């Protein structure tokens, strides 16, 4: 087959010049004499070394040889590999079961939910849990937190880290396992790198810098972006442009996840979608349909009968699954019924004195009321929703249409 030089990622200007000079096919570079290379470099007005590197780049595009960055695996090998893959525990056993053992390495996982439901809490928990030492079946890795909302609260992370350390020590004494390496609190916090991005340009920059960053920080096993939606929600007038930028960011992250063998978790907000004539407001993840294909695993967190519930609705391995969970001062834990002494507070109440974003908690309460109303089939007017700008996003609705 004739391979066009169009498929080699060259600078557009160089490609146009090469096309004009008649070098439109990759095969026309296979056996160029030195004199011809010299003539070509003169025609391209480039130095000989530059020309040679371009020719080298084009020559490397041979069909029968695939560069090692495109991984080719037999199904069986991949199956065996995926079985031995470790995953990041969420802290809740049932939530881990939902996710086939935890957040999967080498994949994108989307966590969506209304404000205050526990997305950010789960993200913090993962940043801490990824550091569990290998002797205790952890990954002993670092975490990168891409903070677009300014939602990273050191105090809360510290709290979770202390709770985890306490639990690890208890585990260790109970199981008489080999003593874990000393894991002081400072190191846990040290292992979390935060990139603060204020708009989508900074997100693009960060995602492009990450491969280089990861080269020097090979222990990183988790990238969290909280949230993926806020830099993109209103920044674009042209929706085609938005989905283009968003898709290229996602594809970069998938590439990073596969090449570096790390997990990527993207927190997404929710939006309310109405039927064609404005009836039946239902909660759906934000960013619309063109985003929907990006993540291999998608989980939505919501309140079901006033219990925090995680719904897995897209997964490469299984169908829809539902589990309850709870957010406690010590972090994400299994849901235990109310009469149990372990539960510190009901989900509708504020969870903890130190809980970040108290306003978010308030919204949960009112959102719960509204979702309750919806269940009772009461009429909800648009004015009611209007008052809650944080939850309802008509802009998004318009995009969908």
């Amino acid at each position, binding site marked *: *087959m004739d391979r066009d030089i169009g498929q080699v990622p060259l600078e*557009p200007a160089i490609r146009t010049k090469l*096309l004009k*000079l*008649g070098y439109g096919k990759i095969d026309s570079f296979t056996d160029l004499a030195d004199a011809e290379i010299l003539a070509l470099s003169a025609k391209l007005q480039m130095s000989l070394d530059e020309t040679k590197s371009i020719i080298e780049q084009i020559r490397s595009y041979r069909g029968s040889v695939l560069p090692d960055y495109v991984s080719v695996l037999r199904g*069986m090998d991949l199956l065996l590999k995926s079985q031995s893959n470790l995953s990041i525990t969420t802290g809740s056993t049932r939530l881990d079961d939902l996710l086939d053992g935890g957040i999967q390495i080498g994949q994108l996982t989307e966590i969506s939910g209304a404000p205050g439901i526990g997305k950010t809490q789960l993200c913090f928990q993962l940043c801490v849990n990824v550091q569990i030492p290998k002797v205790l079946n952890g990954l002993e890795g670092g975490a990168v937190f891409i903070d677009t909302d300014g939602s990273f609260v050191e105090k809360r992370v510290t709290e979770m880290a202390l709770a985890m350390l306490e639990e690890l020590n208890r585990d260790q004494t109970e199981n008489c396992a080999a003593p874990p390496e000393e894991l002081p609190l400072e190191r846990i916090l040290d292992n979390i790198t935060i990139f603060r991005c204020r708009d989508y340009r900074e997100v693009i920059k960060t995602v492009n810098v990450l491969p280089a960053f990861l080269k020097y920080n090979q222990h990183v096993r988790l990238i969290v972006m909280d949230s993926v939606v806020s830099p993109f929600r209103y920044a674009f007038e042209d929706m085609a442009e938005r989905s*283009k930028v968003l898709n290229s960011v996602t594809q970069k992250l998938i590439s990073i996840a596969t090449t570096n063998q790390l997990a990527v978790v993207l927190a997404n907000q929710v939006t309310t979608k109405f039927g064609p004539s404005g009836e039946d407001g239902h909660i759906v993840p934000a960013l619309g*349909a063109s985003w929907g*294909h990006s993540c291999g695993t998608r989980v939505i967190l919501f309140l079901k009968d006033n219990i925090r519930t995680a719904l897995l609705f897209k997964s490469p391995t299984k169908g829809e699954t539902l589990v309850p969970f709870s957010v406690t001062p010590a972090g994400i834990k299994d849901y235990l019924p109310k009469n149990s002494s372990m539960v510190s507070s009901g989900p509708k109440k504020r969870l903890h004195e130190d809980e970040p974003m108290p306003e978010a908690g308030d919204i949960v309460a009112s959102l719960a009321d509204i979702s309750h109303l919806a269940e009772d089939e009461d009429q909800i007017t648009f004015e009611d929703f209007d008052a809650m700008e944080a939850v309802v996003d008509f802009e998004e609705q318009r995009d969908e249409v």
Partner: protein
Amino acid sequence: MDLLKPFAETSGLSGEQLAILTAHYPTALDFLDIDCEVVVSTIPEAAIPLEVIKRLRRLILHQLIPKDTTGNDLFATYQSGFPLTFGLPHLDDIFRTELRNSEVLEVCGTPLSGKTQLCLQLICHNLLDTSCTIAIIDTGSHISPSRIAGILRLWGHGEDKLEECLRRLTFMKVTTISRLLQALDYVSSFLPSSRDTRGSDGVSTKSIVVIDSLYAIVAPIIGGRKVEGFALMSQLAFTMKYVATELQAAVVYTNLKPPSEDSEAGLQANLGVFWQSVPHHRISVHRVGELHVDSLTAQVGHATEIVVSLVKSTKIAPICSVTVCITPAGLSWKTGNSSFDQTKTTSSPKSKLFRAAESRP
């Protein structure tokens, strides 16, 4: 645009003459644009006889013009091919065995509509045939080998068969369009049909290439004001057609579809009008029921119903749609349906047109 030099080298010109000729006419196209007499008079210093120029011209034309194929040749190729089946009678009925290798099939649908599940059904069913080679090009983590193993186990196959099947399956992970093009290039080097359409035992070998999802890879290069993306898209379309027609492999890829209640737009898939004509067949997958938290919660533990309809085909009138269920064991025929209603049509205006055309004597 091919260089003139490789052609001129074979025409018996001296080194000096060759240098002068290629300096004036670097590409074959430049050379063909000018009359032979003009060529001779433009470069008198080379002193190339008119006969040689004419011979060179004939040589170039002979090599550049594609080989002529007759209808008989094409029919023979068609007959030696095989129909591509999903292993689900009613689903296969909508194609009436006209979905064959050497064709490109697009599976389009909104997110969560079951596009990947349809591909998995195709993969698992064909994987059981030991002569079949399947390459999966995954652009995210959409297809999991453990899901394939799970389906095969539920179909009652033992671990030995499972291992043998999975060993014949090739996974490739790509994240950019140039790597996808390379991967397709690579596929052509290991598909059995690229060497010989018949295996050692004389039985025609099957090969299938599945790309899931194509949209994810094309989306970053389209939209906005850049036209570059279209060049790559047409290159991709060309490469896919090459793999299908020249290598006799079936190419199946998934594309996204804009969510819309409008039946006219229901026929459209993403990637623009330009892309509409690329696949030979297009099937649209549509999930029964709404896609929001409440309905998804109600779905837990139940089989998901999807409607598969043929919306574009180069051979058969696209008028059929069929409802199937996604179960842990792949796709299954919707239970409770006693008979398959062949006349069930999609509500699109296009299909009405087709019906009108068919009912005419």
